[in-house]
Every structure is written in structure tokens, then in C-alpha cells.
């Protein structure tokens, strides 16, 4: 059981494990169907396009476009209280899937929707690394 000041951790299950293993190795990945090539996130027990179970976690470029952002002024978990206000971004990866993440190193006034962003990796502990994004242009 986490202490009340901990941030929520990812729920790692057989489907999502590959994503978090890759993140720990500094690689961003999306689930890819080995039969039809569909790329999607979050992971799914079958391919949403062709229903195949033959899927893997394929590394992607880590590059994408900032589609939107929101700045939280309320802590829904105590673990985020010290971070307030904090930024969450919506990224459209160049490979297609959408990803929610955090945008590092910018203030809201500087954010331009449509900006190019790239993944960075923040090690939380030895088990868990969180992919985040920064503006790349």
C-alpha cells in the first residue's frame, strides 16, 4: 500500500507491461498488431482493427505534435499537491496514437498548440520510468 503522499503508479498487467519495460529502457513504444500493422495506445487484449492477439510493443520516434494542454490547480491525489499547478499535455505521436503526458520546462504563456514535442524520460524509481515531453522547436 502506498503512503497517502505517493503519486499513483501505473497499473502494470500482461497487456501494458511492454510499454513500461520499454520506458525503463528509455524507449517510447505503442502497441502494434503483427497481422495488420495497426498502432494504438493504450494497449488492448486484441487489435481494435482486426481482433488479432498477435501484438507487440513497437518503439516509436518519440516525436509528435502538441494537440492541447490543461493546467491542474486541484490535486485529486495528495501526491500531486506539491506540484500544483502542474501541466498535462495531449500529444499526437507522429505514428498516430494519442498520448497524455506532462510537458516539462515551459510556462503556459509559452505554449503553442501545434508545437513539435519530443519524449524525455523521468526515472521515478528502479521499477518505473515515466515518459514526458518537451518542446523541440
Amino acid at each position: 500500500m502506498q503512503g497517502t503522499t505517493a503519486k499513483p503508479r501505473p497499473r502494470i498487467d500482461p497487456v501494458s507491461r511492454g510499454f513500461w519495460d520499454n520506458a525503463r529502457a528509455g524507449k517510447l513504444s505503442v502497441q502494434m498488431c503483427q497481422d495488420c500493422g495497426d498502432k494504438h495506445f493504450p494497449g488492448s487484449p486484441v487489435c481494435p482493427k482486426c481482433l488479432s492477439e498477435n501484438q507487440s510493443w513497437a518503439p516509436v520516434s518519440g516525436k509528435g505534435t502538441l494537440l492541447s494542454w490543461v493546467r491542474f490547480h486541484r490535486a485529486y491525489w495528495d501526491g500531486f499537491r506539491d506540484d500544483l499547478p502542474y501541466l498535462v499535455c495531449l500529444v499526437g505521436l507522429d505514428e498516430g496514437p494519442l498520448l497524455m503526458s506532462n510537458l516539462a520546462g515551459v510556462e503556459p504563456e509559452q505554449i503553442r498548440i501545434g508545437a513539435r514535442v519530443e519524449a524525455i524520460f523521468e526515472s521515478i524509481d528502479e521499477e518505473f520510468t515515466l515518459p514526458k515531453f518537451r518542446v523541440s522547436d
Partner: protein
Amino acid sequence: MNAFHKLKDRVAIVGVGNTAYGNFPEIDDFGLGARAFRNAVEDCGIGKDQIDGLLVCRVPSYARMGEILGLNPRWTVQMPPHGRMSGMAIIEAAAALDAGLCDYAALIYANIGRSRRVNYGGDESPGVWDPWGFTSPGASHALMFQRHSALYGTTTRQLAEVSVAFRHHACLNPSAVMKQPITIDDHEAARPITEPLRLLDYCLINDGAVCIIMTTKERARDLKKRPVMISGIGAREAYSTASIPNFSLNFWYDEMRDVAAQAYGMAGVGPADVDALMCYDNFSPTVLFSLEGLGFCEQGEAGSFVEGGALKLGGRLPTNTDGGHLSNSYMQGWALNIEAVRQLRGECEGRQVKDAEVVQYCGATPCSRSIIYTAG
């Protein structure tokens, strides 16, 4: 023409009832549901034992609800406690009544979220984005509004028009929770929650219940009040980004265009014929998205459409005349549907839309729905 268009004017709402809205820790969902049911039965003058269809939403147990009300129906449906269910429920009941699966259906919704301190985020609704701190339906609406602003120049002062208009209506509605008028400047100065959204963009959380009684057109004629007909319905889901709850990258525009084509096509009316709109408003941005999707304006133009009090009584499109979720009561669409009925019956007194003949309900959500009501 869609096959379901044959449902046009086949089924009516004949009774509506609600409880007071507020903070009621001494009563549970069943107790509130029973009060609303009693009021709806009284409203239509039916014998309660004639009711042979039961739909419950956000009520924890259909069987216990039936036991409490002394009902043993031949049609039962339980809907999950999601906001988007009201339109879905009314459409399902209409189809069941038309098919003869029941003769009189009671639809009961109850919410005790205020007194039980429901949060709508964090550990109450775990999701894949929790490690990044992304949670709550309001945050999804903040993401959408931010993107709408970037694409179309929509401003928070325009967004404020929604909250200001609905609060104005709440001040005319004796049963509304919120009674203090607000201004655009009040909206701009409110506490930010999920920026760019502020407190006054958020719906209330309060306790209460609503009941709707429906039957077929033929049976409706024998009841106490003038029936309100279901003249048009439309439906389209958007599940492909369901892991971001309550979110659509394109503001449910394509889905609402589809919903509008279905509902207007069935009812034989268009946006210009709508005397009042009852628009699902868990957060103010979805009202702008709904106006665009239904075709009251072009995509990207809802900000200018709502300027100058357009949504107020007397404006070009009176919307949420009860005050909506933002200022009347968070009955998750259910109170909006009974407001539509009361407008068409002419029962709204100080907030009555004069000569209302066509009233439309809509909800732009992952399960978008619209219902066009006309006076029977």
C-alpha cells in the same frame, strides 16, 4: 429515411416528477427515487400498479427499487451512473413501449453525490493516465476548450456567456440550487480548477431524483395532462478514444452532425424551428460543441453565437431554462428532459418560453444523443 423514424410521435412522456435538489444526508437514493416516482405518478394521474416497465439509472438496485415501490414489471433495465444515460434511457424506453414490451414505463434517476462527497476524479475513477496526474471529466473538457480556442479563437469571455445565461435562468427557477446572478467578470475571476476552466464552468454536485413516465400515444390520451411526444431521436457513440474519458479531439462534431441529421430528419424540423434547447452541460464547453454539432452555427463559431446573451430567455435560442447542470441541479440530463416537457406544457411560469412547440434535448458526449419533443 432511417427505419427507426417510424417511432416518430408514437410514444409520449405523460408524467414527470422530481425531488428538491440539495444536500440530503438523511435520505438514500431509493428514498429520493421513490419521492420523484410518487410525484410523477401524481403528475400523470395513472394508478401506480399500471406501471409495468421500470428503468433505473444511478439507483443501486432495480430489484430493491421495485420492492420499495411495490412494482413487479415485465420490463426492467438498469443503466450505469454516467451522465450520458438520460437520453439513451428515454430512447430505449420508447422502443420498448412501441414494441409492446411494456405499456407504461417509469424511468427513475437518483443521485446522492453531494451528501456522500463524490469527487469524479483521482482514485474514485482510476485510469491509464493517473501516473501523469490526468484525471476527472472536467480536465477533458479543459483540453477540448483549450484546443477549440487555439483553432477558432474562442475566448473564456465567450465561454462565460454559457454560465451567465444558465445562472440567469436558475434565478427564475424556484427549485434551482444556485440563486445568485453572476456576470462575465465573475466567471473570469473564479478559482481555476483545470485551467483554462474555472469553478463556474463546472456543474454542481447535489442530491436529488427525477422520474419520467412514458407510454404509447394511444394510452397517453387518457391521462391527466397533455402528452409530450417524442418526435425525433438521434444517436452516435464515439468510443475510439474512450481511454481519455469524456474527450473527443474534434469536439464530437462528426457524431453530433450525425445525431442532428437523424433527429431533425425524423421530426421534420431544423434548428430554426427549435423554440428551446436543453443541452447537457456537465461543463460549459460542451454547450458550445453541441451548438456547432447540431448546426445552430458553423464549427468554430459557437463563441460568437452565444455572445450578448443569446442563450437567455428572450435571446435567439433559450437554452437550459431551468438553469442546467451548472446552476439548477446535477441530475445528469434527467432534469433537462423534464424541463423540456414542462416548457411544452406551458408550466414554467417566470421562465416559460412563449408558445414553445418544439423543444430539443441534446448531449454531446461519448454517447451523443438528441431527442426532439413536441406538444401532443
